[in-house]
Every structure is written in structure tokens, then in C-alpha cells.
């Protein structure tokens, strides 16, 4: 797994440049990172499918998705990866535990877990990018169900197509993923390099508290 970026953990925790972190908080964050490292069990699953776009409707392996945002994201793609990644249920168990004994740690675990699953995704992304390169193909930025105008209902298709439960990702009735530190996403495949906006800039949720400036 890629090295955990403390700067990202701080960002999730609402840290801004001009703030001062006292020594104890800094120590506590390091301690939390070490503790979570012991319990994570990173897993991922992905599959490659052909994709068709007809106006704002996207067709992938029996799915028919109506979304402007995803259609824009998959512009120029003939194929797409669907993937799911998680750091495992251990992180949720640890969070529950400290919610009883120490809320500060609970908040730090949350942020650290989020960064950890991000690292798992980045790893997989790099791996897929390498594979694509060998075929002279290029990858689009990741796009997750729930972004922009897409519905969380898409999670059910991910569950069906990827058999996510085999790596321990389950959906609740309300379409939340358990373990909570899990990610699903599309990654479009194109045959020419793309200059496209990614990350926060690609998202139109302008009031998101974690938005990067």
C-alpha cells in the first residue's frame, strides 16, 4: 500500500494552513495511524467491461445509467473498469470502540481510515494504469456512485457485477457500504491521453467540507 499521507488526514479533520497543532494532538494522530495499520485488511476487486454512451445514457453489462456527469466522465471511452476497494471491518470495530472511550481518537480514526482506503484505491489505480499503458490505453479519473447526478442505487449493480461480498463489502438496506471505509468507482478507458479535471475540481459539490482549495 502507498504511504499514508498525514496531510490528507489533517485535511479530513478540518485542518487549515494557518492553524497550530499542539504536540499532543500530533502524537495522538501518529499513534492512531499505527493502531489502525495493525487492523487493516486491504482488499479490492475489479472487472473490465465494454461501455456505450447514447447521449446521457451509459450502457455497461446490462446496466443502463442516466447521468450527465458520468457521461461526461466517460467521454471517449469504449471500455470501463468497475472496482470496489476496502480496508476491512477491523477499522469500523476500532472506531466503535473509541467512540465509547475517546471521541478525539474516533474522529482521527475516521479520517485515517478514509485516507487508508484512498491509498488502496490509488494503488489499484496505478496498477490499472500500468496495464492500460501496455495496451497503449489511458485511464480517466475515478467516478463513484453518488457523485454528481448519479444515484446510490448503482451500488447494487456494483455488488452484482463484482460480487463485492466476497471481499467483505456488503450493502445495507439504505445502500451504505459496510465496512464504512470502502470505495466503489468507474474508471473509463480511452485510447488517447486525456487532459481532464480530477479530484475535487471534477465534483460540483462546492460546499463540501473536505473540498481542496
Amino acid at each position, binding site marked *: 500500500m502507498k504511504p499514508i499521507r498525514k496531510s490528507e488526514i489533517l485535511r479530513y*479533520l*478540518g*485542518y*487549515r494552513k*494557518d*492553524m497550530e*497543532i*499542539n504536540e*499532543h*494532538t500530533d502524537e*495522538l*494522530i501518529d499513534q492512531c495511524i499505527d493502531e489502525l495499520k495493525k487492523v487493516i*485488511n486491504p482488499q479490492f*476487486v*475489479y*472487472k*473490465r*467491461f465494454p461501455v456505450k454512451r447514447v447521449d446521457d445514457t451509459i450502457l455497461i*453489462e*446490462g446496466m443502463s445509467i442516466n447521468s450527465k456527469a458520468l457521461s461526461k466522465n466517460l467521454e471517449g471511452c469504449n471500455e470501463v*473498469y468497475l*472496482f470496489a476497494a476496502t480496508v*476491512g*471491518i*477491523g477499522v*469500523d*470495530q476500532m*472506531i*466503535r*470502540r473509541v*467512540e*465509547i*472511550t*475517546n*471521541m*478525539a481518537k*474516533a*474522529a*482521527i480514526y*475516521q479520517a485515517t481510515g478514509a485516507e487508508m482506503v484512498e491509498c488502496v484505491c490509488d494503488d489499484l489505480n496505478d496498477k490499472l494504469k500500468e496495464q492500460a499503458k501496455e495496451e497503449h490505453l489511458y485511464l480517466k479519473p475515478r467516478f463513484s456512485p*453518488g457523485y454528481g447526478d448519479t444515484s*446510490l442505487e448503482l451500488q447494487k*449493480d456494483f*455488488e*452484482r457485477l*463484482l460480487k463485492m*461480498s*466476497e*471481499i*467483505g463489502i*456488503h*450493502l*445495507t*438496506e*439504505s*445502500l*451504505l457500504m*459496510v465496512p*464504512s471505509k470502502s470505495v466503489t468507482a468507474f474508471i473509463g478507458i480511452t485510447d488517447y491521453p486525456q487532459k481532464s479535471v480530477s479530484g475535487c475540481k471534477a465534483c460540483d459539490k462546492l*460546499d463540501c467540507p473536505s473540498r481542496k482549495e
Partner: protein
Amino acid sequence: MSFKERLGKEWLFWDGGFGSILQEWGLKAGEKPEYWNLQHPEKILRINREYFEAGSDVVNANTFGANALRFPDNLKEIVQSAVRLAKKARKEAHREEDGYIALDLGPTGKLLEPLGDLPFEKAVNLYKEVIGYALEIGVDLILIETMTDAYEAKAAVLAAKESCDLPVCVTVTFDEKGKLLTGGTPESVVALLEGLKVDAIGVNCSLGPKQMIPFIKRMINSSSLPIIVNPNAGLPKSKDGHNYYDMTSEEFVGYMSEIADLEVAVLGGCCGTTPEYIKGLVDMCKTKPFHPPVKKHHSVVTSFSQSVEIGKKPVIIGERINPTGKKKFKEALKNHDINYILSQGLQQEDAGAHILDVNVGLPEINEADTLVEVMSQLQSVTALPLQIDTGDFEAMERSLRLYNGKAMLNSVNGKQEIMDHVFPIVAKYGAVVVALPLDESGIPEISEKRIEIAKKIYKEAEKYGISKDDIVIDGLAMTVSSDSSSALVTLETLRRIRDELQGHSILGVSNISFGLPQRKIINSHFLTMAMHDGLSCAIINPNAQDMMNSYRAYNALTNQDENFNEYISAYADVKTETVKKAVSEMSLFDSVKRGLEKNAAAATKEGLKERDGLTLINEELIPALDEVGKGFENGSIFLPQLLMSAEAAKAAFAVIKESMKGVETESKGKIILATVKGDVHDIGKNIVKVMLENYGYDIIDLGKDVAPEVIVDTAIKNDVRLVGLSALMTTTVVNMEETIRQLREKKPDTLVCVGGAVMTQDYADQIGADAYCKDAMETVHYADSVFIKNEGEK
């Protein structure tokens, strides 16, 4: 001969891959293999038949993923067609005399509560439904397979046992580290499934035969049951994420030949294997001697992931989750303050307990309901195994049924009536049970009689198939001050349990010292003596330093603490602790501001020598909290620091409250907090709770995934003026809206503030909330505005 008559006595062979063959034949990603029972029955029939022909003694009906969640409309047709096809295949292969058909049960696809949202009993019923349909057509046995969560396996086993008398086999799926996805190990899985009295256990899927070998060995070492081995054809290779297997049947059989030399009983395959592989296994075993399973003697208690073996070095059982003589604990039980109870458990875990005793018996509460709730919540925060401590048979049965793992049960005794009630429960669910050697004529005063009753209990348990390994005899520690020879009798009993019965023993150690001053002196020395005389389990307060000192010293001195690891890790740092104490000269204000919990408590104790609690609160605590709160609001302090200060303040408040015992502390008002239905994460709500509590509010915390009706009823019952609701996702905001609607209708004078990841002012207005609070501090200000305004109106 039936499957059961042959199992464990001769080589038997299961079938191999199924889904992997269908994929080669055109099954698409996301397409359900069980649909092929109806769409391509000839193909299903062919696979079943070819396995029988290749020499499989057991063939699975194509029902692995069949349950009402995946097939809400035609489950019966799917299941019954699968069983019919398997039967037809057996006939065509001329294996009707010696071939068996297994109903194949896989995971439900959902995660069980409390981590997920599928209730345990619902899982049991999902399996029962499938079993019921299969029984109408007739199968020979039930296979529960590819289980990555031992709890789900337990639900499936209970469904099978409660539906029929057919043999039940279970195979689980380990990752390359030998763990289930929810943390189980070979040892914990064996203990759980043997306790549930399945007929055979084993491993399948995920790994190839080579990677499975160490885990198969661990299963054999701990289990007395026949072992099933159904590996994949090696580790999966992946092309574009689509798995395939490239281990040849020769290679596969080569590795399986190594496994066949171990004490295993049934061989087969999983993903990537075909009838050719099975035929290879059958041929290979023709020259292999069969090793029948050997009876093992282990006394093991487990949680979902950890196992504790009794009979090696002494086991510490934490006694603090018990209301007896504890005012605060009783209050917590009455007020349904589950978090307080959980914190008692976590504290004991940190102090070194291996197992936690759980006793929630109070006359004014429903013991069974409370025990089940506390047990299940404890299992969501700690992986320590639990000892269910109750005399209420209903509470016993319900908690052992829902327990995730193989529990310890406290207790049974030599009274016939008690044994008649307790042993059937233990026999059904599996448990290590504490047995008190007393009977209808009371507590024997001499050890001979205690041993005699212990023997009677062993014998009676055997009638139910409960092994002596699963019984731990209590040495009965009686108050030494009322009978000065009683400690000697107890110690003698312990020695005789060890030497004459070759059994395991347990003691509630601190009973010994009632009525004496400085009880810890007697307790800790008695513990050392008892361990020396063979005590297997000590029920003690692990937070008591003297007890843990005795325990660690005993292990170190009796060569039971390798390299003195435990001793050194517990005591090597003691010196530095005393140095750190100097910091406690920091003021309470600074301690809270800097978020130093221990310092805050020490400074409060110090401060109370000169000033009273209220002055401390008003002059130091609240000003410190306000300053940090302001910093948070103006962006100079971030969330973890705010929370560390909150925790420090909480520690200070606890000290002050302790000092004002008896004095009614005034609360600013009662507030309900809840995360709405559908949302299973509640950290945001919990942050708000900590802050509100620090500012003097009484919080009724309803937890997460809370139905609107519950919130409304609680608001009415407690006449609550303010409700705080949290929602994390757009999909659950509708439930927030519904909660507000019902509150308006039934309790119109209650105000509602909302928050959460997806909430905005616009959203809050849309759903009719009274206020949107973007963070914990805003909630505090809003609550102040509500309650202080209302005070004025009074």
C-alpha cells in the same frame, strides 16, 4: 450405507468447481448461476452427472446463492429444480446406492448485525426457507460452505438443526493469513462449530491446496471431527479482473496427496477444478491409508475472532460487569446507559482480562432483554470472549443463541432441576459451562463431597453429549472470616479437581475476604495460592493492581511467561510514569485547553482541596471549554483538539461529580440525540453528544438507525423540548423528514435541530427543521438559545 455411516471411516470425495465451469460455458458477470437450473437444466445436469461419474460421493445441488433476498419471486422453483436435477444426475450415473446429494448453502450476501444490518434471526429464517423447499424433494445432507463470517455459519447451522436431522457439514474460507473476513481463525471456527455439533468441518475456496496446508493442520490439531478439504485449482489469476485458474489436475492432485497424509476425511475441489481433478483425487487415494479423526481434548472459549484455551496458563475473567454492590452500575442499567457498561468492559480488557463476565441481573429490569443487548453491544466493541452470567434460563438460552462464538456460561450446579434446564441449552448452542459443586443439600463443607458432586455433574452432562472438556468446576471460595478453614477446603478442592478429575477449575476469588480490612491483601495472596494449586480460571477485578501483580508474578515464576514478555511490558515503564507526574502541576484551565485528560483529572483533585466543585466549573472548566470552542469556530483550532479538550473536561467533571456525591447536580435540560433510520454511522452525533454533556445537558442517546416512532415516543415519555437528528446520506434525509413530520403531529412543542454530512441550511428548511447546526459548537449554542429562552418564560 448412509453418508453419516461412512463419514470419518473411509475416504469420501466431494465434487469440484461449479460456477467456474458455468463461466466457461457463458455465464456472464453478475448473472446468477442458479437461474440456469431453469434456463439450461441440461448443463446443470451434465455437471452433476460428470462429478458422480468421476467418483464424487457427494454432489452439491446448484443452490449455493439461492435465498429469498436474491430470488424473491421464484425461490422454491430454483431450489427444487436444483435438487431434482442432482437426483436425476445421480440416477443417470448409476450412483443411487453410494452417491449423496447435498443441499448447498452459501453466504446470504448481507452482513449480520451488529456490524451490518441483517438481524441474526432473519438470517436463520432465510436459510430455513431454502432448507424447507429442499426437504420437500429430499436431500441426503446439508453443506454450508464458503463462509467468511462464523456468525453467519452459526445462523445456517441452527437453521439446519432446527429443520431436520440430516448431517450438517460446514466449510469456511480463510484468506492467506488464515483469517475469515470477520476475523475468525481455524481454532475459533473449530470451537464454535464443534459446540454446535456439526458432523464435519473444513475449508474451501479462495486458496489453492498448497496455501491451505497450514490452516488444515491447525484445524486438525484442534478438532475431533472429520475434516473436509475443497481447495481451488491454485490461486486465481486475473485477466481484466476476470478470474481464471491455471493449476493442472496433476499439480492439484500432487498437493492434495500431501494433504491426504494428514488426518483428513473428505477431499474435493472448488473454483477452477473439474471432474478430471476429482477423478485424479479418487485414483490418488486408492493407495493412501485413511486416518480416522482422533479425539482431542481442548477447552476453548471464543469470540468472533479470538479464542482462549482453558487449562494452559491461568485465565483472567473480569468481574466488573455486574451490578452487585455497585450503585453507579445499577443506575446505568436502569437508565439504559449501555456506553457506561461497555466502558467497564473495555477498561478490564486494557487491564489484562482474557474473558469478560457479563451479569446484568437487577429485579427491576428485564434480564433477558438487557443481557442480549449488552452482550451484543459488547461484541461490537471488544473481541474478548464473554462469560454469560445468569440464573435466568430464558436469558441463558437467548444470549447463547445470539452469541457470536462459543461462550462461557456461568453457571450450572449439582441440583437435578438446574441441570435439567441448563444442559439442553449448552448441548444445543455449545458453551464452556461453570459448574458449582453444590446440590439440593447445600454447599458441602468438605472437599470429598465437592468432588463427588463434580463427578455427578460430569456424568449428567455426558448424557447430553457435553464433554468434560466443556465443564469448569468451581472450587467455591467461601468467606474465610466466618470459617477459618474454608480457604484450605477450597484449595484442596482445586488440587483434587486437577489431580483426581483431570478437570478444569474456576474461582470467584474475592469472596474469600468479605468482612476483613484491606481485602486486597488477602485476595491477591489467595489468588497466588489458588493458582499454585491448579486454578484454571480466576474471576477477579483486573483493574485491581495487586491481583494483576500476583497473576503476572506467578506466571513469571512458573515458566509460563515466555522471556518475561508480559511481566516486562507491564512493569518496565513504571519508573517513567512517576516522572511524568510533575506535569500535573498544570492548572485545570490549561489542562482542559490543551486537552490533557489525566492532567485535568489530577488538577481537579488538587483544585478541590481549596475550592468547591461549582467554583471550579465556573472559573476554570467552562472558560477553558469556551475558549477552545471559540477557537474551533474561528478556525484557529481543529476538530481533534476540540474533542481532546472535551474529553479532558469530561474527566474533570467526573472527579467533581464524585466529590459532590449526594448533592443533586442541576441539568440545563434534556435533549434527545439520534441518527435517523437507515444511517448506521453515528460519529457526528457522538461528537455533538460529548460537547452537549460538557455544557451541562442531559442527553438521551438513542443511537443510530433509529425509527421515527422511537424518537417520538421517547420525546413524549420524557417530555423533551429539543431533539437533535443526524443524517449522513441523501437517501436517509427522507427518514429525517418523516421523523420531523411525526414529531410535529404528536409532540408539536418539541424543537428539532439537524446536522450531518449531507445537511445544508436549504435542506433543513425544506424538511421543516427548526435549526441547522453545522457542527457541535453550533448545536451547543442552539441548545443554549432554546433552554435559556424557555427558562425566561417560566
